[in-house]
């Protein structure tokens, strides 16, 4: 009887360790948050070229992550990329209408993200608005091409 109890304890511990390990993998390794999904507000922006930006990429202001890209699609009217972003709700009504959205790269080989820099317009962006002033992603081939054509024209 005592041996059976020890065995039950061992198996219970084993299963418990497995569940705790799964929780660790979920929280610490993949970084999902257990809390209620935060309220967000949505902004959109059209870019001529988004490079390697994808749904899930981060949106940062002054280097601080303030949201995620929720959708990337081709705008069939203008034939450019329409990026939908979900930002922290606290920022609703605090981002001015003439803010700039640009696609930046973290480090030389890092992931691409959207950087927002605030303008000075007293009118603020509301839920679902579109940022007009955008800068497309830097594409290395285009830069090299420009550089080469500048070199040859000199």
């Amino acid at each position, binding site marked *: 009887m005592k041996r059976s109890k020890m065995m039950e304890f061992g198996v219970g511990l084993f299963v418990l360790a*497995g569940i705790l*390990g799964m929780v660790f993998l979920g929280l610490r390794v*993949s*970084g999902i948050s257990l809390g209620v999904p935060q309220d967000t507000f949505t902004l959109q922006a059209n870019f001529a070229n988004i490079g390697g930006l994808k749904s899930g990429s981060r949106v940062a202001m002054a280097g601080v992550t303030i949201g995620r890209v929720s959708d990337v699609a081709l705008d069939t009217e203008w034939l450019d990329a329409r990026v939908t972003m979900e930002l922290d709700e606290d920022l609703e009504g605090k981002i001015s209408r003439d803010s700039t959205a640009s696609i930046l790269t973290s480090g030389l*080989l890092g*992931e691409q993200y959207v950087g927002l820099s605030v303008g000075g317009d007293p009118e603020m962006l509301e839920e679902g608005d579109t940022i007009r002033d955008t800068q497309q992603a830097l594409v290395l081939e285009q830069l090299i091409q420009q550089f080469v054509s500048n070199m040859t024209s000199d």
Partner: protein
Amino acid sequence: MIRPIASLGRGTLEALSALGRASMFLAQSAVGIPSREGWHLWLRQMHFIGVMSLAIVLVSGLFIGMVLGLQGYTILVGFGAEDALGQMVALSLLRELAPVVAALLFAGRAGSALTAEIGLMKATEQLTSMEMIGIDPLRRIVAPRLWAGFISMPLLTVGFSVVGIWGGYLVGVQWLGVFDGSYWSNMQSSVAFVDDILNGMLKSVVFGLVVTWIAVFQGYDLIPTSEGISRATTRTVVYSSLAVLGLDFVLTALMFGELG
């Protein structure tokens, strides 16, 4: 002229009938879900198959994580990208190494023991005696072992991943000096819970089923002599290793390739 063709035919028929026997065997014994009265049988097997395999799986996981940290660092530092170490260690462990290596160790540690145990029961006619007194050996002997293996494997894989990631952290961050924050944050931004972690777990569930199935079937189906037992034990390890590696490729192509 006729003889080689006939032997090819015989070989095919034998292989097919073994496959058929194995499938019937799985279907009949998987029905024996651990019930109230079968609880202690299942518990004993969980202890033997799962808990006792924990030590070897965790130690291997630690060393594999440490080697990944060391090798990854020396390669990545050449590109100035040693911050991506966490990402590399975590993804290679979660997607491939943890399910596959844990399953191979499991086949060697628990699979061979299962075959030998059931094989000896058959050789000493314990299984036949059980049938004589009206106990279904598939339910009494095989089902608890099958279910225990099936449940233990994902748990062992989780342990392997966790310890491996910690091993990579020990070597990369504590010893070689990768920045602590970038180890975890790069990992978090690149590992997706469903795509990477759950797919890895799904792999380990499949491997757990296949390895235990092969092990108990080889034990149940062997020729009841001492030579038969030794052959069946070898076959268990060989077949389950090959099955795990082959299935791993198929599952990877389905999960992470553009096929899926």
